């Protein structure tokens, strides 16, 4: 496709976007949803499989109590009503990612309904309404072979590993989100980020997008102001927070260009491509899906005891929004400063760095400065940059101890990000310690004074500001490995001037 896309500003000036998000979260229970197979990530193929998750004749599923408890806690944290009585349902389909030809899911009786999640976007609070939160089982992993690109198209056969089949999966569906206009892509991203933080705070999943324990499908449509909502597309394969934003934006642009040309949007599934940032059509829904849902006969209904639900509600941890407000106060940040910390995805990182003994100001400086810059450059989340809060704290410790100056600390941090080791190791291996040996420094200072008699005279006559030039000269001879402040003091001392 070589169609030129319209500019984003023009699109939002002419159209109103409506978005919706469907998020899947793999729970971090020890065992699968309906059997005792372990759920740990990365085992050899088909080693976490039993007759129940294989759907062998005669096997019977039994619901995992920890998973039921986890989803109720998620529902409560999202301000949902918890059903007094609900059932699992069979979703029948013929695809080898489930060995049973059906997936146990929930259909018209989800366990949690009608909630909301408030998210901060551009200094404003946007309330995202939650339609439902339900429990289902994850599917197996299919590997398509024989095709040119490892994708399903052109594949001659598929290889299936059922280790993941049956892992408890929570599906969280928003109501359509309208009226966010130009902010739609940011709202989508902020929602997924907030949801991830809430779930992580609950401790029910590690919510790692790159490992697939948090997966997101994004619905997008455009309509003219005052008119009915447009036909929506569903974009799958959105595997990072940044991609959530990009997927909405690129789909808005694509749909606008179709509509501008007098075309119609096809209701379809589209795939997001991390490399190009655009979407391509996936399976067409020309044949209406017919999953023939019916109540799962092998499982009894769930009727959460209201007393149990109340107990779970009372025991919810401090949720991220409240937690952030408390941190903002502790760190003494303005709303704007806190917003930039949030935007950078640095709250937890700074918090952990502070917990490791660094001042909030220093922790914030590293995470929002050098590290954010590197993350942007390489297009990864800040949390995945390769530097840990402990390493940042160690680095600041070296600065505080006078072993590294600011410039050297930045070089060391580059090394940390590049995986060269701990700050102390890198400082040693790169020979980057501040020259604290006053003898060596004094020699360098005396040399600088001797080489620049004019400047030295100026300083002697009281023009202290001229010392900067000599500091520069000393830094040059020490290859930047001196502490500028110490050098300055030494210069003034040698020239007999009071700083």
């Amino acid at each position, binding site marked *: 496709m070589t169609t030129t896309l319209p500019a984003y500003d023009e699109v939002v000036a002419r159209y109103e976007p409506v978005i919706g998000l469907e998020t899947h979260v793999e729970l971090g*229970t*020890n*065992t699968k949803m309906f*059997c*005792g*197979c*372990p759920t740990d990530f990365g085992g*050899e*193929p*088909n*080693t976490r*499989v*039993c*007759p129940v998750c*294989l759907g*062998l004749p005669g096997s019977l599923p*039994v*619901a*995992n*109590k*920890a998973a039921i408890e986890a989803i109720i806690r998620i529902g409560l944290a999202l301000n949902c009503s918890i059903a007094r*009585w609900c059932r699992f349902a069979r*979703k029948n*389909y*013929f*695809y*080898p*990612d*489930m*060995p049973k030809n059906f*997936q146990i899911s929930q259909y018209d009786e989800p366990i949690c309904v009608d909630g909301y999640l408030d998210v901060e976007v551009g200094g404003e609070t946007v309330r995202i309404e939650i339609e439902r939160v339900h429990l289902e089982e994850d*599917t197996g992993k299919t*590997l*398509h072979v*024989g095709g040119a690109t490892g994708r*399903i*198209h052109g*594949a*001659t*056969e*598929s*290889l*299936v*590993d*059922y280790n993941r089949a049956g892992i408890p999966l929570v*599906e969280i569906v928003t109501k359509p989100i309208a009226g966010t206009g130009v902010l739609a892509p940011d709202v989508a991203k902020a929602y997924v980020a907030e949801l991830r933080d809430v779930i992580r705070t609950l401790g029910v999943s590690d919510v790692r997008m790159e490992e697939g324990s948090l997966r997101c499908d994004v619905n997008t449509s455009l309509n003219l102001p005052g008119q009915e909502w447009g036909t929506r597309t569903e974009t*799958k394969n959105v595997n990072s927070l940044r991609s959530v934003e990009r997927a909405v934006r690129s789909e808005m642009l694509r749909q606008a260009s179709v509509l501008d040309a007098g075309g119609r949007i096809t209701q379809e599934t589209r795939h997001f491509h991390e490399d190009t940032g655009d979407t391509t059509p996936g399976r067409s829904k020309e044949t209406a*899906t*017919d*999953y*023939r849902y*019916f*109540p799962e*006969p092998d*499982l*009894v*209904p*769930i*009727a*959460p005891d209201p007393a149990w639900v109340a107990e779970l509600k009372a025991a919810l941890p401090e949720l991220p929004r409240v937690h952030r407000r408390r941190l903002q106060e502790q760190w003494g940040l303005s709303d704007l400063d806190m917003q930039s910390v949030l935007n950078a995805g640095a709250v937890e990182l700074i918090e952990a760095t502070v917990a490791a003994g660094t001042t909030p100001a220093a922790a914030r400086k590293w995470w929002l400065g050098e590290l954010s810059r590197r993350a942007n450059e390489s297009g990864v989340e800040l949390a995945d940059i390769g530097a840990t809060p402990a390493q940042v704290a160690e680095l600041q410790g070296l600065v505080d101890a006078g072993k590294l100056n600011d410039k050297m600390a930045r070089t060391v941090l580059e090394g940390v990000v590049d995986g060269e080791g701990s700050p102390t190791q890198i400082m040693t291996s790169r020979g980057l310690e501040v020259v604290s040996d006053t003898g060596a420094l004094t020699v360098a200072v005396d040399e600088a004074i001797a080489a620049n008699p004019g400047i030295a005279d100026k300083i002697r006559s009281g023009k202290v500001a001229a010392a900067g030039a000599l500091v520069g000269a000393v830094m040059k001879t020490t290859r930047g490995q001196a502490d500028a402040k110490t050098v300055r003091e030494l210069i003034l001392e040698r020239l007999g001037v009071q700083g």
Partner: protein
Amino acid sequence: MAAISREEVAHLARLSRLAVTEEELDTFAGQLDVILQAVAQVGEVAAADIPPTSHSVPLTNIFREDVVTPCLTPQEVLSGAPDAEDQRFRVPRILSEDVAS
């Protein structure tokens, strides 16, 4: 009137990946119709005060603790597979099929 049409039977057969001949469609449509008619009679008896049920026993909340139990060995897992490769089930190519999520 028949409770199930010949077209509906053909649709179900396709969803179930069953190769059904034209004659079989007539046979099964007739047989399924008898079954559905019989079930419909139960529906006639059920009064408004009888809620629909999906289970014969009135149980709720049967849970299991989150404790790992032994799995099968990969050899056992794949023993019933028509074909396997790299310790995985090997299946014919999949195209334009629907995927659950």
